């Protein structure tokens, strides 16, 4: 496929079964090739981010997907991106933070960790517990640009804010 371009498609809407199948069928039938993607249900909404390779302009890609997105009641956004595959960074650290939910946990924690050299590659967070006593749980995988010890020290600062936090080195086995 010469001259194909990469686009990033974001689709968000009320969750129901069959969204992925419908969206990806429309893209396939329209001549798209999917790259990396991330899809998850968040608070009753389904959110999708897909790298899409397509041999046409933005207008033509809208023609491929607009009808399907509309019929599924999905909000659609398309960006042209400088994307490429086979460009993964390997995480070398996993950090878990949890505590009684309150505003500002993510900002505080990620701020301290960023200063200590953490490059976040993947962040997943959830609110568990009950409506009366919500618990915030966050899982981060990243690259420790300045090494693990400085991140460990940073995490001690985080713990003083009243959250629990742990750090595991990811020692990837290549076999």
């Amino acid at each position, binding site marked *: 496929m010469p001259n194909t371009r990469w686009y990033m498609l974001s689709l968000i809407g009320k969750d129901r079964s069959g969204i992925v199948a419908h969206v990806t069928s429309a893209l396939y039938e329209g001549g798209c090739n999917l790259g990396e993607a991330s899809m998850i249900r968040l608070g009753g909404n389904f959110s999708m981010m897909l790298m899409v390779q397509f041999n046409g302009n933005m207008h033509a890609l809208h023609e491929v997907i607009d009808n399907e997105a509309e019929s599924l009641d999905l909000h659609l956004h398309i960006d042209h991106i400088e994307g490429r595959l086979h460009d993964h960074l390997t995480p070398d650290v996993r950090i878990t933070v949890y505590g009684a939910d309150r505003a500002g946990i993510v900002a505080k924690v990620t701020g301290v960790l960023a200063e200590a050299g953490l490059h976040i590659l993947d962040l997943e967070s959830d609110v568990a517990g009950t409506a009366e006593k919500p618990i915030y749980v966050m*899982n981060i*995988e990243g690259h420790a640009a300045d090494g693990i010890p400085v991140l460990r020290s940073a995490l001690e600062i985080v713990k003083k804010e009243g959250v629990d936090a742990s750090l595991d080195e990811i020692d990837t086995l290549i*076999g």
Partner: protein
Amino acid sequence: MALLNILQYPDPLLKQMAEPVEAIDNELEIFIRDLEATMRAGPGGVGIAAPQVGILKRIIIVDVSSKPKIKQHGRLVLINPEITEWEGMAKGREGCMSVPDYTGNVIRAKNIKLSALNEQGEPCEYDMEGFEARAVQHEIDHLDGLLFLDRLVSRHHDLFQRKVYK
């Protein structure tokens, strides 16, 4: 010494069962030397299994001595290896020379007991733990036509998994 070609998924040979080694002869010794050279030529490789170079025999090589501060046995050539006991479970990150540009989380036994023949054909037994035990389990999977992709677990919900497996 020759570097062998490492097969990459979806090569169908990677999904085949390997056969036990019947006799250790000169030809096999040369193959083992080449297999080890191939493992060491790969970036960061701590193990290799014969099926990864298209030879369906039950031979693996593991050497995690590049990792400081862990319990390990150094360079190991393991012929017809068999895990006789498993204990504990741990999640860890794995990649594979036969699956470039992808790493994923896999649950493996923390401690294993292993019996195998060494290069001289003598029966040996090993107690292994942690990273070395993980490497051996990864390589023995290759002998059974399994890749780490067959054992992936979600990278999320770490807390839940600790609760279950600790």
